[in-house]
């Protein structure tokens, strides 16, 4: 047997096989070990954690379900409420973000927008004027907003004849994704102040609105690419078959972009599910989410690794299950044979 030559075309030489599978095995270990460590830590007594590492339950130490009992029985409602909060906030914000975002992405991939730079400038001016009127002149904010909006629209309309450079769809797309380039901590304080002003801190609503806004650019960016791969012929054909634009979108385009839709939904769901920073600002008790609860185990009596492990396990479990369930959609090439062939 030759060690460095493959036995036949399309297979690997024994030596390369050994190296590659060795590396893959090592990487698998690196990835899976933290998960293993979580599981064994969740059944350790505090003393087993404190006295240096022990690895194998039943061999190195006697496992105990005390942490699980504490989280599920002693804490009980205090575990389930944040859990339910996380489910509500993550699911609803993902639905909203994917719904609005994919429609925006579709519009950007199919219609041509030519916003004029001068209109954008006037709009910013209008917003600034409104803010000044409210803060410095003490105008009622409802009046200021309505008047500001009306005035801005009138001025923009009046400025139609003024020559101005035009922006295109790609500029809009870039502007959207640029919202994600900003570190979220920059926006966290203004968002906090805003919800404080309207008295909506620590509500599901505040979290859902914030997460939807934060995830929208990602949805638009990803779905734009998926929609661009749907052949235009199909939509034109459907239009001639008598379908309205919405029908074309929901019956032809969306089903064809399903793999992308599933992947995108999963991504924003996980982002919302794991989100920590904004939740820390916006929720205290009622709307507290699971990541906050996990971090809270580090609070008064030093890190409670055993409780944290239990919480992290139940936090990542639904994500793992969902990914396994949906992975067949993500890789599927539905467009095969759409046109020509």
């Amino acid at each position, binding site marked *: 047997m030759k060690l460095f030559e493959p036995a036949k075309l399309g297979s690997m030489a024994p030596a390369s096989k050994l190296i590659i599978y060795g590396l893959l095995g090592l990487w698998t270990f690196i990835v899976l070990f933290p998960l293993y460590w979580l599981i064994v830590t969740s059944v350790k007594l505090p003393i087993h954690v404190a006295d240096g590492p022990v690895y194998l339950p039943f061999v190195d130490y006697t496992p105990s379900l005390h942490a699980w009992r504490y989280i599920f029985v002693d804490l009980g409602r205090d575990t389930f409420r944040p859990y339910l909060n996380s489910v509500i906030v993550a699911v609803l914000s993902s639905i909203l973000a994917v719904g609005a975002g994919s429609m925006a992405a579709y519009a950007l991939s199919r219609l041509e927008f030519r916003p004029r730079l001068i209109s954008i400038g006037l709009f910013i001016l209008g917003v600034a004027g409104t803010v000044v009127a409210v803060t410095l002149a003490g105008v009622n904010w409802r009046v200021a907003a309505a008047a500001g909006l009306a005035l801005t629209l009138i001025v923009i309309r009046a400025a139609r004849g003024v020559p101005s450079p035009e922006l295109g769809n790609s500029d809009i797309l870039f502007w959207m994704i640029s919202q994600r380039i900003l570190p979220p901590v920059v926006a966290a304080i203004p968002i906090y102040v805003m919800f404080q002003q309207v008295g909506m801190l620590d509500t599901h609503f505040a979290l859902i609105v914030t997460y939807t806004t934060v995830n929208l650019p990602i949805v638009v960016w990803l779905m734009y690419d998926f929609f661009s791969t749907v052949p235009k012929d*199909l939509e034109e*054909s459907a239009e001639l078959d008598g379908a309205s634009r919405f029908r074309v979108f929901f019956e032809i385009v969306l089903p064809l972009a399903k793999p992308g839709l599933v992947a995108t939904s999963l991504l924003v769901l996980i982002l919302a599910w794991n989100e920590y920073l904004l939740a820390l600002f916006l929720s205290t008790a009622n709307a507290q989410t699971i990541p906050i609860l996990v971090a809270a185990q580090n609070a008064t009596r030093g890190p409670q690794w055993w409780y944290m492990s239990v919480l992290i396990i139940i936090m990542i479990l639904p994500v793992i299950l969902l990914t396994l369930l949906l992975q067949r959609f993500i890789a599927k090439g*539905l467009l095969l044979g759409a046109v*020509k062939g």
Partner: protein
Amino acid sequence: MTIELEKVAKSFGPVKVLHELDLKVKPGEFLVLLGASGSGKTTALRMVAGLETVSSGRILIGGRDVTETLPKNRDVAMVFQSYALYPHKTVFDNIGYPLKVRGLDKGQIAARVKEVAEQVQLQAFLDRYPRQLSGGQKQRVALARAIVRRPVAFLMDEPLSNLDAKLRGHMRAELKHMQQELGITTLYVTHDQVEAMTLAHRIALLEGGKLQQLDAPAMIYNDPANLFVAQFIGSPPMNVVTGELTEGKFSARSQAINTKFRRSHKKTVLGVRPEDCSITNAENGKFRANIYATELIGDHVLVTAKTDGELLTIKANKNFSAPMGATIGVDFPEDRLFLFDAETGVRLRA
């Protein structure tokens, strides 16, 4: 129903892709828009479908002004070059989609789809997905989807060009038969002159966004309006020789021939079709030429001969053979030659 284009024009920015086009497709007529790529034929079709806006002019379908009407409200069916079958729907659902959109109930849809599927011999494939079909079958599904709702007009954008040559010939015959049977007005776009000649009741030949000639296939072939039409139609293309016409005498460099034209014209192009030419001995022909190449096609031999630097093609008897370089005479009946103005391409008439 009629399709009328009244001075329809289209520009993309400064580029004028279609100049004022006037066209009237009669009820039940099969009209072919023929032209090379960039001639504006597809743009014209897409404007009739409503997929492209009209820069100026009016479009009427069945007497109704549809210039500003959405595609879905024009009640025309279109077959795309790519077939544009919905990949996530079965053949049944593909064919039934126009009916579903119109809100027909399931029973009616099933009955109509079955009826149409029978017409195009697709009964056995109704449960399949487009990716499981051959090119010819996909083509049939696209046709079935177009005819299922009995539209006022068919629009076809090179529907046969994705098929291989043999299947194309077969589908051509089927298409012609079906159109005749249904009697639905059809506007058909192609760059293939054979398709145009065989399918059309009338051909509209476009070039550079301008209508060159609108006529029955036989007239387009036998009585071309200009040099472009004469050279576009016919395979191999018409032979042309540039020269000068003086008192009916056409002279090209070293040679001159008499014509029936009783007039003079400075820069003139003489055209004659390869099948009207015959080979004689060097002294008797209208042109004296040297054999450049001979190609056996099967039922005839294609002879290319060189005269004064210009190549002439002659369709000769299948038994013809001659060595390369041999001097021959090229003859043709006087009434089979065409004369055109060399600059404008306009046909000169006697």
